[in-house]
């Protein structure tokens, strides 16, 4: 288990990469640190590893305060984005390197490297140099090296981002099963929200050195606490439209909408942001009072469904709203007038960038509101 308390990392240039961060990661948990580049997620991982010294705050691993300990005495294993396999050592020597540092005898080193390699499907490759391996094999050698030293925690720095798209899916499934089997606490840094949702027990969304939201993949997907998280999570970004309350309803982009539960009873004229995922809206070709009016601007085929982008009916600039419709209906013709009807039960209403009816106050909104 890993616990971070009041963690601050300020670089000499004055940049605060981590800004007063608290986080508890349970034993055996798989936590994904998710955020855009520059949000501090890699710095946080390096601080847990001990490669960066925090400016303030404490780092605890397995109930032990390791803030002052060098990386090698924290009993963690890290997999780097470029894998950092030693090019002059063969696969077996690479996997056994942590054991060599720990002065384990040569015979036992070889045996343990072979056993670990076998487990990860690398048994035929022990004599090869990293340069003679494919990207996927290199990634598994890096994993094997991390596993071989039997650490208390795994720290992964975007280990899948150097693989091509198809291989990444295979490696993702493999990694998730492996982590389940080993049940070692794992922190996984990624900028790919799909990867985070797919792999993790909990997702910590970071922005500007702070945690914007920490929750299960379902929580951060269904109930993003800020408009930043809402716009960041999801294969297709959530529609976030400005509107205001009036007479118990919400007036948003030409539609008159029934507010979802937590947003009822807002005073008239109160400005809000109305959020609905493209998957949770339906397309109507008949005029609807509770639908956003527009015309079909772009249709993108996603295989099992179509992503339809409506543009404002009166011309205007930019997209208005996106809707995912099943492909059975066929592609709507471009320019057709259409109404995007959100499902009220799935809609979220934000005031000043925060979700209305959120159970607990999220971290201060350092998030930039995205429309």
């Amino acid at each position, binding site marked *: 288990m890993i616990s971070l308390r009041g963690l601050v990392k300020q670089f000499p240039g004055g940049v605060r990469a981590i800004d007063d961060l608290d986080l508890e990661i349970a034993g055996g948990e798989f936590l994904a640190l998710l955020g855009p580049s520059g949000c501090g997620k890699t710095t946080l991982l390096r601080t847990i*590893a*001990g*490669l960066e010294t925090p400016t303030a705050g404490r780092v605890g691993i397995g109930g032990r305060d390791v803030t002052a300990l*060098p*990386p*090698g*005495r*924290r009993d*963690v*294993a*890290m997999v*780097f*984005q*470029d894998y*950092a396999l*030693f*090019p*002059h050592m063969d696969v077996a020597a690479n996997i056994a*390197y*942590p054991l*060599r*540092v*720990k002065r384990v005898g040569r015979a036992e080193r070889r045996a343990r490297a072979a056993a670990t390699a076998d487990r990860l499907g690398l048994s035929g490759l022990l004599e090869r*140099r*990293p*340069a*003679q391996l494919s990207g996927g094999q290199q990634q598994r050698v890096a994993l094997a090296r991390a596993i071989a*030293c039997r650490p208390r925690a795994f*720290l992964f720095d975007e280990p899948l981002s150097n693989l091509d798209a198809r291989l990444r899916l295979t490696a993702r499934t493999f990694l998730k099963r492996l982590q389940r089997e080993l049940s070692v606490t794992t922190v996984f840094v990624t900028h790919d929200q799909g990867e985070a949702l797919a792999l993790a027990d909990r997702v910590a969304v970071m922005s500007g050195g702070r945690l914007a939201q920490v929750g299960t993949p379902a929580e951060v997907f269904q109930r993003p606490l800020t408009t930043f998280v809402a716009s960041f999570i999801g294969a297709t970004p959530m529609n976030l439209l400005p509107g205001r309350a009036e007479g118990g309803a919400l007036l948003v982009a030409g539609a008159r909408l029934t507010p979802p539960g937590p947003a009822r009873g807002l005073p008239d004229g109160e400005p809000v942001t109305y959020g609905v995922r493209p998957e949770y809206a339906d397309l109507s070709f008949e005029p609807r009072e509770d639908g956003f009016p527009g015309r079909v601007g772009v249709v993108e085929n996603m295989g099992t469904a179509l992503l339809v982008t409506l543009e404002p009916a009166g011309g205007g600039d930019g997209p208005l709203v996106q809707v995912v419709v099943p492909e059975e209906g066929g592609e709507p013709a471009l320019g057709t007038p259409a109404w995007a009807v959100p499902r009220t039960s799935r809609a979220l209403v934000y005031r000043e960038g925060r979700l209305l009816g959120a159970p607990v106050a999220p971290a201060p909104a350092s998030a930039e509101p995205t429309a």
Partner: protein
Amino acid sequence: MVRHVLARLGVTAFVAVLLGFFALPMLWLATAPFDAGASIRVSVPEFTLANFRALLVNPFAVGSLVNSAVQAGGAAALVVVLAALAAYALSRVQVPGRDLLLYLLLLMSSIVTGTAAMVPIFELATRLNLIDTHLGVILVVSGGLLPAAIFILKDFTDATPASYEESARVFGASPLQILRHVVVPLIRPGLATIAVWTVANVWGGFLLQFILIRDPGLAPGSVILYTLYTEGGQPDLPLVSAFSLVYSLPVVLMYVFVSGRYGFRFHGGIKR
């Protein structure tokens, strides 16, 4: 057509003369040692091995080869070890004014082993009792070669990704272990270059060794070569030519060996 042929002939003749100009000394080195009447000219030799026999009975010739080997080997070892440590540190630790420091060192080094500094160096060596010692030569020569060696090696250490070392650190390796297990194997071509360059420099060096070593029993080959005179005070050309050949062979062999081992091969790490 005729003009073209004439032009070709002219160019070829010019290149031949130019090549001959540079090849003649080499040719002399190939023929004179085996010539019973070796002179300053290149001629078809009157074949004999007597010159080499004369070399063997010379009281200092064979010993000077050992002296050269000790001094060159010692300096190479010192330069490689110190330059590796310094280059690694300089490429990993942020020191204010680091680049300026390197350039200054490089500039100074040409003064240290240059003629201008000979008197103070002799004075210093005398006070430290380093005259007539191998150590004296090794220290002074290394001092002169180190800055350039650090400069060259830093390029190699800079090119090694920091993630290799960070990875080793997370697994608990100490800085010296990281250097030994990861950095040194990766910069081995650079280390080999530095070692060869140092050996060649010391092997062919004359002035410093001439000044720091008074005892002919400790003098390296380059200095002994200078003492091969006949009783009449003329250079003993048969002996000089034979010794020149013997003295240049080790360096040539070293180049061949190192170039075969490291010259054209990198095992896939540094270049990705």
